[in-house]
């Protein structure tokens, strides 16, 4: 017979405000097995924990229930308390009477009744709890970073600095990401390439870092400390080891009409190309969709001009399998499509561009060599209209996103300021809903755009852009002056909302990492564990977790690296004690559990059994690898003969809980 203690927490007024904690403690005192029951203001405080420890000693408790917040919050805390008092940590159960009770009810009577039921349920379970001992698993001391933008690069550099090997997997032919496309960065206005490319070179030269560019993660197996990852190295038809990056092939290739994605299609590149001058690795890649040789077998110019002999038209995709201890998602963002927002005439006029396109137009290495001209006729624009929040903060999300994309206010101020600085003959208008510039030196920066550079900030949205002859007639409202305004602009720049990269969703599925409704990765805790995914061993870096500017991205990238290092320095990890196990006498070897196990933790063995008639028989039975099992419980539900059970969550325990709820 168990000797159970019950500890009801007030959580200040969080619980006590809607639950009569005294009544709960009194009611639960009479439950079977309960020998002690008390309430206290903050059970998680030192004094609260001491109260538990004393009760364990004084009343010889064999297990206890804490009626408090979610087990995600303090289960670990109270398990440690139990351990400190000499009790097995798995003899502790949490009844969640905060998130699932006091916070959702307003009526004291209902809240109290429900808290008693929840407490009773946990007690019913503890009555059947047994001490559990977790196993251990080794740690592969190597990290995988998925995505080679500034987030991925920074995370990889920091992990490598601590002495651990890192692989960066990047789908594009080069690392660098969005930052490589940006001209200048706010609020310092330093050149993005000048601060990014040295980091790219550092990554390339670091002997702990391996860059797998033009590659994709196609499968992830295993668990924290022991991930097994399949990586597809896409055929680039150029031998990376031999290519010197001289670029001769990219000048001679006769296929000149490929839209250049690095310049967002505003100019063209060849079918064999190096995305930009500072690309890492600096090797050519053949675009199979456009290469005449690969499509028709006739051409071969690049192979002829390549003095190194690096061109290989027969190259095939290569599949490699690697082991890692930790995985960092750094898949970044993209501007959303402007297609549903044709009130701004993006599809109708070349002179309606996105802010990222403007970055390329202003960049010395861009399609106009840094000449700020209109894409339609190459003329210098005099009146420029910026529209903020295009697709951001869309109420109801009929189209666009409900969230604020966070970076647009600052980069629009930057663009407006740069244009006014370089071309004082321009008039620049910015239409905004709100200007949001929190951040170090950010608001000062925006004020400078308004006060020193005379950028016209108008509160109100643009309703319509009508391409009319040479100009773009912009119809908008000025909410402060309460009037309609018309501006004949030469160029309209749309601050497009940003969204997670399309690769993030399938990756999240592979990693069993959770995502929010916008496909941003969810952090384990929004405040206390912001760079970890709820899935152990998976970490988050940069804009894949939410919209971020560069300073924030780099901070989070380093934070994620610190968490990875903290994992990789360990030689062994304590496994989950709540794992599945099979009762061999009941197992009929049907393989159902093996098929549903997402972790590949179940194998089969032939075992000899003694039969009632004294003969022996060989039977095929399931066996669980306890280091691999994550305790999800899928097998226990699937098993037709009831042989599979989950330690700590046995069928008996769960039925006892259900009975207690229904009592």
């Amino acid at each position, binding site marked *: 017979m168990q000797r159970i203690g019950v500890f009801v927490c007030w959580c200040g007024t969080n619980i006590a405000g809607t639950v009569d904690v005294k009544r709960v403690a009194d009611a639960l005192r009479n439950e079977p097995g309960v020998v002690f029951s008390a309430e206290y203001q903050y059970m998680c405080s030192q004094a609260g924990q001491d109260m538990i420890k004393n009760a364990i000693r004084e009343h010889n408790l064999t297990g206890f229930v804490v009626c408090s917040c979610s087990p995600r919050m303090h289960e670990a805390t109270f398990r440690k308390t139990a351990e400190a008092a000499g009790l097995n940590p798995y003899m502790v159960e949490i009844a969640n009477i905060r998130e699932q009770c006091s916070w959702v009810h307003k009526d004291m009577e209902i809240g109290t009744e429900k808290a008693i039921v929840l407490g009773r349920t946990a007690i019913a379970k503890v009555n059947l709890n047994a001490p559990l001992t977790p196993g251990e698993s080794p740690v592969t001391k190597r990290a995988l970073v998925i995505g080679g933008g500034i987030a991925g690069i920074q995370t990889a550099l920091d992990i490598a600095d601590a002495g651990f090997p890192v692989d960066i997997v990047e789908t594009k032919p080069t690392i660098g990401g969005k930052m490589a496309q940006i001209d200048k960065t706010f609020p310092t206005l330093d050149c993005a390439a000048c601060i990014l490319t040295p980091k790219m070179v550092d990554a390339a030269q670091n002997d702990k870092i391996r860059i797998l560019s033009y590659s994709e993660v196609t499968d992830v197996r295993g668990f924290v400390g022991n991930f097994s990852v399949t990586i597809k190295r896409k055929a680039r038809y150029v031998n990376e080891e031999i290519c010197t990056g001289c670029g001769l092939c990219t000048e001679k290739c006769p296929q000149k009409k490929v839209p250049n994605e690095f310049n967002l299609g505003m100019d063209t590149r060849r079918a064999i190309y190096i995305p930009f001058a500072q690309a890492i690795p600096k090797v050519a890649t053949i675009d199979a969709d456009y290469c005449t040789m690969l499509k028709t077998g006739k051409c071969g110019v690049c192979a002829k001009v390549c003095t190194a002999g690096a061109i290989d038209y027969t190259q095939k995709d290569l599949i490699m399998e690697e082991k890692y201890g930790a995985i960092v998602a750094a898949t970044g963002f993209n501007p959303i499509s402007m*297609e*549903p*927002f*044709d*009130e701004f*005439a993006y*599809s*109708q006029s070349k002179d309606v561009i996105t802010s990222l396109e403007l970055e390329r137009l202003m960049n010395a290495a861009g399609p106009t060599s840094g000449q700020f001209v209109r894409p339609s006729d190459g003329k210098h624009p005099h009146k420029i209209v910026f529209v903020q929040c295009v697709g951001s903060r869309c109420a109801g999300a*009929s189209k666009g996103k409900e969230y604020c994309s966070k970076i647009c206010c600052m980069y629009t101020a930057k663009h407006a300021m740069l244009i006014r600085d370089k071309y004082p003959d321009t008039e620049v208008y910015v239409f905004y809903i709100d200007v949001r510039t929190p951040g170090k030196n950010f608001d000062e920066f925006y004020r400078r755009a308004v006060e020193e550079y005379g950028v016209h900030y108008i509160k109100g949205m643009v309703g*319509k*852009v*009508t*391409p*009319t*002859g040479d100009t773009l007639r912009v119809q908008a409202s000025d909410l402060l002056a309460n009037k309609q305004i018309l501006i004949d602009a030469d160029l309209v720049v749309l601050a497009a909302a940003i969204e997670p990269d399309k690769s993030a969703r399938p990756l999240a599925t592979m990693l069993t990492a959770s995502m929010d409704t916008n496909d941003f990765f969810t952090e384990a805790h929004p405040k206390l564990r912001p760079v970890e995914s709820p899935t152990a061993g998976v970490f988050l870096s940069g804009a894949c977790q939410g919209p971020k500017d560069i300073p924030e991205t780099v901070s989070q990238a380093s934070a994620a690296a610190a968490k990875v290092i903290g994992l990789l320095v360990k030689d062994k990890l304590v496994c989950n004690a709540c794992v599945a196990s099979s009762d061999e006498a009941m197992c009929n070897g049907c393989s159902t559990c093996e098929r549903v196990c997402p972790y590949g933790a179940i194998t089969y063995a032939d075992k000899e059994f003694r039969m009632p008639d004294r003969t022996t028989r060989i039977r095929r039975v399931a066996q669980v690898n306890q280091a691999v099992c994550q305790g999800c419980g899928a097998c226990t539900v699937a098993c037709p003969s009831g042989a599979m059970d989950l330690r700590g969550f046995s069928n008996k325990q769960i039925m006892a809980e259900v009975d207690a709820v229904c009592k």
Partner: protein
Amino acid sequence: MKVRYFPGCTLKTKAKDLDRYARLCAEELGVTLEEIENWQCCGGVFTTATDEIATKLSSVRALMDARDHDAPLVTVCSACHNVIKQTNHAMQNDADFAKHVNLYLGKDGQYYGEAKAIHYLELLRDVIGFDTIRGKVKNPLAGKKIAAYYGCLLLRPSQTMQMDDPENPTVMEDLIRALGGEPVVYAQRNECCGGYAVLEDAAIAKKNSGKVMTDAASHGADMIVTACPLCRYNLEKNGTGEIPVVYLTELLAEALGVKEDAHDAQ
């Protein structure tokens, strides 16, 4: 096949061509527009006042008729279409509204949004199909640069109308292409013509319709095509007069070669 048809008041008075050619063309394409009996005016606008029931009963009765005949309810006029679709949507999604309407209906029966309301353009696109229409064209509109004018009521509110992208619609352009013409895309094609504001202040209609017509003309359009009698009225009366305005069904009749017959019949 047969569908139920709600012509609306304007199609019986000012916009007889819109109605006549709609029927002729549908017949030519194998669909009979059966006019529902005893229909009443749709009310002209869908009032956003949630306690305004009486003006929406006409739409509900028309929808009930379609349900009872197990056929979609087709309208041509953009305004009727808008009122009927919005009413149907409210009957499907607003239990409180539906309850009050059904109290009014009383012994006439009860209605909960079972019918499907579609615009004539949807009949052409989704039921008949533009490919079928392309095959039936006798006089292709070759060389004609035609500016489709959507106005506001045909597509908005887009979540209720469920017809096309309200900011970048293509249905009329696709139809023009199927008829052998060359669609002209211009920004003002989904802006308001001025609508009923013309009764209050003709200057508003002048400003709006003028903008629409100038934009279409400056993009090289030979004509503007619309499905809405009020849009046509405003564009013709209050536009700049640069290019003619025709009904969608007139254009279709011309391409299908049924237009002359219609004149003969008169």
